[in-house]
């Protein structure tokens, strides 16, 4: 699946998107996998209450299932307008 990062999540992880092969059942399972990868992921995902997640470009929740999802995006709360 495609995993995308925006704003300071992108900066902490150091890349805007990557392709990840995962068996994670939920967003939270994916976060746990990512945290275990490297320090920069652990730092980016340290406090998920400061993060938002979108599944296939729709805002979602961290307990949402990933079955059938092609694109996951992590980012801080939006600050447009």
């Amino acid at each position, binding site marked *: 699946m495609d995993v995308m990062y925006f*704003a*300071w999540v*992108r900066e902490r992880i150091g890349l805007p998107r990557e392709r990840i092969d995962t068996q994670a059942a939920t967003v939270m399972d994916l976060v746990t996998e990512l945290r275990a990868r490297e320090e920069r992921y652990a730092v980016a995902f340290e406090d998920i209450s400061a993060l938002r997640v979108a599944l296939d470009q*729709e*805002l979602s929740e961290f307990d949402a299932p990933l079955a059938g999802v092609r694109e996951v995006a992590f980012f801080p*709360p*939006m*600050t*447009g307008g």
Partner: protein
Amino acid sequence: MDIRVQEAAFDAGAELNAFSTGHDAAGAIVSFSGIVRDREGGLSHMEIEHYPGMTEKALTAIAAEASARWSLADVLVIHRHGSLRVGDQIMMVATAARHRGDAFAAAEYLMDYLKSRAPFWKKEVTADGAEWVAQRDEDEAALGKW
């Protein structure tokens, strides 16, 4: 409905005038425009990041919901991304309705949802460095009124 996400500058006044014409029965037009301000002093420029694809979908969904809730003749949303300087127009929304109450409520709803639910992120760059703008608690709280 006209939703535009663009890097290029736009002329809010010209957009307002273009938007104001041609809605036969809608005599009430409300606009909101957001302008880059140097609130604390020392702002060099602002960078706005967005999520191409999701941004347009989110704005379209917000505008469709506003059109479902209020009696509107038209909705306009323009939001820039990229690098903006002090005084630049960041974005605007406009609503046209027969009754002003609908135009006001829909414009404020659009702004409240755009602010916290459309995937834009602002970074302020000063001589001291760059800082991502944090969400204000009151922006999230504003959604509670709808």
